[in-house]
């Protein structure tokens, strides 16, 4: 069953730049997908449309049966509660501890205090950071910070995890560690994972579905792909 379905999706920015042209794409529940492409290829725009930071100018973008393209701004939060999002720059709050950063995601949606505690600790355990709950983000390594961000993204048990270049700021070893965590989440929780990246080694190592984007169009869609020069 498809979780995400794009039909004829185009995106043109107000300044006239065409980022995405007439894109068709289907992603099934439980898949792990790498989206690859160079700078300015449109992969970031595609990712942003998935969590409705950007709105398609044309076409249908269906996530979990709902057309996100028609979602009103004031209702976007309903979509976001079903998603987990991880960014390249972690986006943690420096004045909150690891535990508070993860719990924050549940607090703002009005979860009960007792549930917050259970879910937060479980989530931190899943990313292997149970021992660092009281630390502040600046006391952690880049990889650990990204794991906190992942814990925050999955704390609400989302069906879909969107990662926008999560390894962009990390060295190869840490990058692999992070993708391992994502792979684990994908396998154990059945969460669909979409990860935009331009990390050649990671893509080649994990052998997942690879969608290559160039100039706003899908140029390759490998089932067990690799990152080669042909792909981009």
């Amino acid at each position, binding site marked *: 069953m498809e979780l995400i379905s794009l039909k004829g999706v185009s995106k043109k920015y107000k300044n006239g730049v065409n980022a995405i042209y007439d894109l068709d794409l289907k992603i099934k529940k439980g898949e792990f997908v790498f989206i690859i492409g160079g700078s300015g290829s449109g992969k970031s725009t595609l990712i942003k449309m998935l969590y409705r930071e950007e709105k398609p100018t044309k076409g249908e973008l269906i996530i979990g049966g709902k057309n996100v393209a028609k979602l009103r701004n004031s209702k976007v*939060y309903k979509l*976001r509660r079903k998603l987990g999002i991880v960014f390249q720059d972690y*986006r943690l709050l420096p*004045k909150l501890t690891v535990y508070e950063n993860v719990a924050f995601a549940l607090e*703002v949606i009005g979860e009960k205090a007792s549930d917050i505690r259970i879910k937060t600790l479980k989530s931190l355990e899943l990313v292997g950071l149970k021992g660092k709950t009281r630390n502040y983000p600046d006391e952690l390594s880049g990889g650990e910070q990204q794991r906190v961000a992942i814990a925050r993204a999955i704390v609400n048990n989302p069906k879909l995890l969107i990662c926008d270049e999560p390894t962009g700021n990390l060295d190869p070893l840490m990058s692999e560690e992070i993708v391992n965590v994502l792979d684990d989440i994908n396998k154990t929780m059945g969460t669909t994972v979409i990860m935009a990246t331009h990390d050649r080694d990671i893509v080649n190592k994990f052998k997942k579905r690879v969608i290559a984007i160039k100039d706003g169009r899908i140029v390759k869609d490998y089932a067990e792909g690799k990152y080669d020069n042909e792909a981009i």
Partner: protein
Amino acid sequence: MKLFRMFKCGVRDAFKSVYRNFSLSIASISCISITLLVVAVALVLSFNVKNFSKEIESDVAMVVFLNLGVTNEEITEFESTISNMENILPNWEAQTPTERKEMLLAEDDFWNSVGSLIDNEEEIFHYTYKIKVKDINLINETATELENLPVVQVVNYGEGIVEQMVSVFDLVNKIAFLVVIILVIVTVFLIVNTIKLTIFSRRREISIMRVVGASNWTIKNPFIIEGFVIGLLGSIVPIILTVYGYTSFYNSLDDGHLFSSLIELLPPQPFVFFVSLAIVVIGVVVGMFGSGRAVRKYLKV
């Protein structure tokens, strides 16, 4: 229950935020304090001018002179006419020719010297009425109406001066009101700007809140409560200054008379409490409105 929990969260976050962004909060609070203080001064001035002009206006009377030798029937008819006129207060005073003669003899040396020669007062002195009006702006119309009655000879009410005075008071009142309104608007801008600074330093937090699925209301809520808290804290100093300042100023005057016995200030109680209430309400409402506006920009997806 969930709403209540989130509201509780909002209140807690607002206080936390005021504390965490202490220097910015102090900046917002002091800037609100200063503007509210000016608002307080303008309010005190405005109400005192209003009170003072009301006092003077209520003292303005017109004197109606009836024809010489009016009959008792004409007098009764005149009195019933003025009782039915809308703009005339019912506390008018009548003066018979004899009373008028006595008053003039007591007041004036000339009349005193010739008064004893007069024994036919009714042919020399008029039957007069001292009349006060409800709406001083309509005094001209009322006077004309009275003058048109056949039994009335002349109406005196200090034409010109009264109208001038009325228009001057009116102007002063309008200016004071305008100053209050302008200051309130200025306060809104100041609050919007200072809270924008706070929000600017917290835009990361807002963007994370949006990413993890906080509704616009949830994001706005702590900022609006923060505006409330800042408005509330900002009104403390102006209130203290108003209450103690006005009371001691009033007490330093002779019975509340400023410059002359003509200008009487409003007694401090309950006036200062009323002004304080107005200051709190303005501070709080403007604080909430200001932060609501300031955060709006960051809520657009």
